[in-house]
């Protein structure tokens, strides 16, 4: 589903240049839930940005659904993201003047979908998120957990091939965070969506099928979920 092929991402020029990612290669299978871990500055978020086409690698190639991103124009990548990628941000990033319903509908509306199509799909994901009764509320009237559920509903409303989540539980309490992760995982399993989640939290990472650890822009570790649980969780709890 996703293939990262010898990707390097440099920032800065000349002597001040540094590699946020340094010759990273990995593959993510369709339907797989991949957790990416690593300390601050290890390149996690940069990798996520590159996977979503928000930024371009300095070297190397990224393939999503068999399409090399480097051959696509900015508009093509944008439309691809709109139709096939769901994004979940750490700080929710809901538009403050739009209601929960409008925030969820945004991607479909941007794509020019008619309201008769948008309405039922938005209702369905809001019901799944347990927020049907809060659909007309604005973000500032919702709790942090509710806001993140709206953000996940927004990421899922277009039935994306890939969900990219950047610290989705970073601003939530542990109980709410767990509920979010369970929902994300169950939805991915039900629909066969690929999920790539960046996190600091080993417990959150344990929801993944596999965990890749980055350190100084390189892949330091790449282990399946069972081995990960066995190796890391006893150290945490």
């Amino acid at each position, binding site marked *: 589903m996703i293939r990262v092929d010898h990707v390097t991402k440099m920032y800065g020029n000349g002597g001040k240049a540094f590699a946020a990612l340094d010759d990273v290669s990995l593959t993510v299978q369709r339907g797989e839930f991949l957790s990416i871990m690593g300390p601050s500055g290890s390149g996690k978020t940069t990798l996520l*940005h590159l996977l*979503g086409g*928000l*930024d371009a690698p300095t070297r190397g190639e990224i393939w999503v659904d068999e399409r090399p991103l480097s051959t696509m124009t*900015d*508009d093509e990548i*944008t*439309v691809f*993201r*709109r*139709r096939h*990628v769901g*994004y979940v*941000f750490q*700080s929710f*990033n809901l*538009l*403050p*003047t739009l209601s929960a319903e409008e925030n969820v509908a*945004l*991607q479909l*509306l*941007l*794509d*020019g979908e008619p309201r008769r199509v948008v309405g039922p799909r938005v209702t369905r994901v809001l019901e799944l998120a347990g927020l049907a009764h809060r659909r007309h509320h*604005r973000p*500032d009237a919702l709790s942090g957990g509710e806001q993140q559920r709206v953000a996940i509903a*927004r990421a899922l409303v277009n039935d994306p091939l890939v969900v990219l989540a950047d610290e989705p539980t970073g601003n939530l309490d542990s109980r709410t965070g767990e509920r979010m992760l369970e929902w994300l995982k169950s939805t991915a399993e039900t629909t066969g969506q690929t999920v790539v989640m960046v996190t600091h939290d080993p417990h959150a990472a344990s929801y993944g099928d596999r965990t890749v650890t980055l350190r100084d822009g390189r892949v330091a570790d790449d282990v399946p979920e069972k081995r990960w649980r066995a190796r890391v969780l006893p150290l945490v709890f």
Partner: protein
Amino acid sequence: MTTLLRLVGLRELLARPARSTLAVIGIALGVALVLAIQLANRATFGALRQTIDGTAGRAELQVVAASDGGLDESLASVIRGVAGVATAVPVVEGTAFVDDGRGESLTIFGVDLGDEQSLRTYEGTGGDANEAIEDPLVFLAQPDSVAVTRAFTTARGLDLGDHVAVLAGSGRHQLTIRGVMAETGVARVLGSGLAVMDLFAAERLLGRDRRIDRIDLVLAPGHPPAEVAAALGAVLPTGTAVERPEQRGRQVEAMLTAFQMILSSASLIALAVAVFIVYNSLATVVLERRREIGLLRALGVRRRQVLALHLGEALVEGMVGVALGTGLGLGLARLLAAPVAASASGALGLPLLVGHVAVDVPALALAAAAGLVAALLAALVPALGAARLPIVEAMRATAAVAAPRWAGRLLGAAIGCATVALGAVLAALRTKAPGFAYLADAAMFATIGLGSAPVMLLVARAVSPLAGRFLGAGGRLLGESSRRLPARTGATVAALTLGIAFSASTSIVAQSFEVSVIDWAQSFMGHDFFVRSALRERGFVNAPLPPRVMDELRALPEVRTVTPFRLIRQRYAGETIALTGASNGPAGKTAWVSDNFARRYRKRAGDLLRLDTPRGRRAFRIVRVDRNYNSDRGTVTVALGTLRRLWRDGLVTDINIDLVPGADRAAVRAAILQRSGAEYRLEVLEPKALEAQLTAGIERTFAFTWGVQAITLVVAFAGVFDTVLAGVLARRREIGVLRALGCLRRQVATAFALEGLLIGGLAAALGVAGGLALAFTQVRVLFPDLLGYVADVHVPAVRLAGIAAASLVLTAAAAALPARRAAHLVVTEALAVS
């Protein structure tokens, strides 16, 4: 406090140079206009007083005629016999034109040179007082003698004994230069346009039949002017008045004041726009600095220090703006002074020479104070908002976006002001009282200022879903910035609305006067040609023509009828009005009066009107009140024969010509010009050409306002640029999110460009509506009161549509650059904005 301002405030100003520059430019332009108009006005007033004082010389009293050339020359000897009169000097003052292709006007000063020495000084070029005339005996003996200024002879390469051809009321004359004056005394006041002649020679040149304009009096010591004036009243015939020289300037000053009030109000509008721009700029700064303000408060900075910090920043911007504006204003004043004086000179019938524009300390202080007060006033609301921010709320990344509580209150206040404005407009139209009109204008400005933000909010809410339906995703995001930053967007709408309202009202006023004047002209346009002198005497009045011109015209076989008119100045109730003699005018002892005359002097048809004539006071029954634009104080029309007989005036001002059927118009026109054109410098106009001349005259009158409008609109459009750019900066993270969710660059750009268009569209709608309301009170109430002219309201629909369309195009253009910037934000950097 200064530490905080130095550490935080000044660095902040330098860190956002574009916005600081915009605020400074706004203040600078406002200050420049206020200063320039003040200085130009003061220079014109100064020139006016110099002219009046200079031409009066040492005269303490003046005996003046009721109309042009209306005093009998022999009156001087009667006056000399009155107790307290030391010297009585008869004066003829008129205009002649140098016949050298340039047609420069000369103020002909005809005096009795023997008596004149006691009144005024004419200095010779050698520097000796009263030696301007080489040989007084020859000067008096030869009626073609004239003394001119050194500047006049130098400009033309002339010297003593040389000849100069002039055109005057009696036709073309060759004068001989027998005196050259240095630019001192009267010559300094009137400049190179002064020509001194002997009284008798001047009377002949100007076509006066032993009649003079005034008698200047020097009083004997120990005789107060009031006492002598009373004694003179007993011996003078009806129709003559005794006044102090400074009284002559009063009507002129009143008119000048009205004219300058209009200019000053235009400069205040520019300053008001600047206030909105500074407000806008600071409101954006406060929004962007919320976290910093929270941090400062958390670190122990007091609320009043936060308030002072923001006011201090505005003061710094204001001071820089005042410094720049002062320099700009001084330059602008030099450009404005000459046209303002020329326009006043034309309207007032007095030669006004503005030398250099003096740097006037009170004017500088006023302009500087206006700039600083404007900056502080603009900063007050955002500064108070910053000071009152709760610390925890300020530390949040973004502000809550609930509808502001003040929106409802502002809307209520705006509706209240609009109601007051409407009531005042109706009261003004009904009572014609200028007080109601001023109240209406003030209430309308308050409505625009208070109502723009809440109306913008309402419109943004209403338009957003609709735009989404028709314009796609870009349209759906329309109005977002306005909803996020309603006060700032509202300020921009208010600034632009003010600019457009000012432009629209000026256009309507100009159109109203243009159409009204043309309508008036239609009443005498049913002729084939209009013949008159191409030279203007004292600005707007055409130079008079001798009656033999009519004989020459009648002699042409193709000419069927020749209809002459005469226009002179007449004193009425202590003011100068226009008196017209029309060959097709009212019969016998009846008169027509203009509507501005009827309004000013409370006369109507059927009333008796008493006019002082050289043959004594005469009564005329008013039989018609009609429209006439000959004078701001009003026009009285009598039969031409009556004017000739009672006012002893044989000259003509305008001649209407009708041709025999089938006549070749072009050939007749050529024949008139060939036969009489050169000698009398005639212009022969067809109705369309006359209409074009009148239209051009009105446009010249409003020319000053176009410049002010342009500056106001430029500042306002810069505000649109700033507002949309601020929207982009404030919504960077949102733009990043939208782009991450699949929003195309062009969709982002469309949203912001449409935001600019929304501002432009709303401002255009409100501005045109406000302009219409302003124009109604100006045309119907204020201008008749201030300028003396009455007009009907005519709305230039095409021009208003043009203003609205131009504002849309310009706002779209102003928004284009920030919209492009929004579209090209780097998504990952935008997402990183906290």
